[in-house]
């Protein structure tokens, strides 16, 4: 009995994409508290620089005015700046680790081999995962930002909110793409936790979440300029609280994010596919 055809229709691909999305949503909904943490942690994260700023400057007003000299931002927007930074960073983290953690978890469950044994195209699965992390980030950003603004007494609706959300979704795509690189790294070095602990804080620094990037030493600035998470953070701050667009106007900034959104997933997927092929030649992808 030879199969009639091994062609896969668009519908089949969509089935995999949607199936993966639904499975991820169901799983996260059964980890009660993990979404709540996504909303609450940025609040604590933002509280630290906000309070530190007041302590150093003597008052909120003094902190704002000092901050203004570095950023051109006015009034209490130094608070909003921190709240945005913390929430965007939370989304960047989720996206950046997404695929590495996914590989790791599926390895320990044994589902990675089940996935690779199935004829589903890896890109359909990855698209489902990306859709999931975008939806999750959108929801937690809206909740986290609103909650932060309410608690610290800032108006959340002062800027171009829809533009900011669009930037969030666009800017997370390249970060997701970079997460394929981490997936490859997890397949190769099998030390997921070490990798994550090593990358986490440098990532926060070069994303420029709590300070303008210009205060960094030049070599760190160079890393920041190569990291899409930096532009993502900056552009959301620009859209919401009037920070200057990095390249002078909104279209150039969006164009750069868009270019990253194409290049990063391609590079990431290419490297992952290479690593996968190598481990298939060696000991198999399920080994860890």
């Amino acid at each position, binding site marked *: *009995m*030879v*199969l009639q055809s*091994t062609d*896969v229709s668009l519908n*089949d691909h969509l*089935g*995999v994409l*949607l*199936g*993966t999305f*639904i*499975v991820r949503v*169901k*799983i996260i909904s*059964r*980890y009660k508290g993990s979404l709540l943490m996504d909303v609450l942690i940025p609040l604590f994260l933002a509280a630290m620089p906000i309070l530190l700023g007041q302590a150093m400057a003597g008052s909120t007003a003094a902190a704002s005015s000092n901050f203004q000299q570095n950023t051109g931002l006015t009034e209490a927007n130094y608070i909003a700046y921190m709240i945005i930074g913390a929430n965007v960073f939370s989304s960047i983290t989720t996206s950046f680790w997404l695929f590495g953690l996914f590989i790791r978890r599926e390895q320990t*469950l*044994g*589902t990675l*081999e*089940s*996935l*690779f*044994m*199935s*004829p*589903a195209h890896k890109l359909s*699965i990855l698209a489902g995962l990306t859709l999931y992390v975008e939806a999750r980030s959108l929801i937690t950003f809206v909740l986290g930002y609103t909650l932060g603004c309410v608690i610290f007494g800032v108006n959340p609706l002062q800027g171009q909110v829809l533009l900011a959300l669009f930037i969030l979704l666009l800017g997370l795509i390249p970060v997701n793409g970079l997460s394929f690189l981490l997936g490859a790294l997890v397949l190769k070095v099998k030390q997921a936790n070490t990798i994550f602990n090593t990358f986490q804080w440098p990532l926060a620094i070069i994303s420029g979440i709590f300070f303008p990037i210009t205060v960094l030493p030049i070599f760190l600035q160079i890393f920041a300029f190569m990291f899409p998470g930096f532009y993502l953070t900056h552009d959301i701050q620009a859209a919401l609280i009037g920070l200057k667009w990095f390249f002078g106007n909104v279209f150039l900034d969006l164009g750069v994010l868009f270019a990253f959104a194409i290049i990063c997933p391609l590079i990431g997927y290419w490297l992952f596919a290479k690593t996968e092929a190598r481990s*298939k*030649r*060696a*000991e*198999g*992808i*399920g080994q860890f």
Partner: protein
Amino acid sequence: MNHDRIIEVSNLSKTYYSKKRKSLIKSEKTKVQALKNVSFHVNQGEIFGLLGPNGAGKTTLIKILTTLLLPTSGTVRINGFSLDQERGIKMSIGAMLMGERGLYWKLTGRENLKYFGALYHVPKKLCEDRIENLIDLLELEDYIDRTVETFSSGMKMKMVFARALINDAPILMLDEPTNTLDVKEARRLRKIVKEHNESENKTIIYCTHQMYEAEELCHRIAIIDQGQIIALDDPLELKDGLRQSDILSIEGTIPEEARLAVNSLPGVTSANILIKRSNNGSTVEKPYLSVVCEDSHQILPVIISTLNVKGAIIRNIDKQETTLEDVFVNITGRSLMDDTRQSDTSN
């Protein structure tokens, strides 16, 4: 090419290279030859057994056939597809390996099956029907809608089996599918495998280290040991090789010297110490001497006196039916129950 041969494997070899830590800084590359020049074919509609002890290379072979692993050399053809036509092979196979692993713990049984249905591009409605059939077939109704984390080993095993059937593939590959099942459940699963083969005309590769499973189920059996197929035939033929011989099992305290003496008696084919496992509540392991000989009536007195002279204490002597275990022991001098995993061969 013969069209009845749904699977053809030629000169398949697989070598694993792994690093072994010697100390903090030093590590050493070790090499394990898991498969050595394995060739065989499986006919359409047949249950083909791969029988061999732990570490024989069964799982490695299945991983190559399911495209999870690439061989070091050799070729494979499955359902008309070669290894570089991955999608064709994947669509042709339903597989169960790694025991009860490979399920999402936070999903219910049904949600797991639905997702894997989607991964195999099974249309939604058809998938739902199949799930209902599988629930009946495998008696899953009591727990199919509970999350997998609440399942017992046996339940998970049955879910993994159900997952292997969800795409209704022409070929089923089962790697030790009864491992964590109790005796009754294992018997039931074997019955289902047999029915699946008979009524649906599915081709099945069945890996096991339990000789009675292979004997009960398989049309043909490849006995695999240390990466090589050492015998391949139908179970009767395999045993026929030993049919003219008798097999004695001698319990007692038997020194190695005594075994060697018996082993070299004229008329004795082989004499090996094996372990008998009996399970009544807790597992009891009893060593015994298994003697393959030409005519036990004639030679038994000689064996007994040889054992006595060499200081053995005999407690019981039985004459046994020939089993596949005896076939294995006769060729390799070891028991199927032995663990033959190689940590290192050469470096």
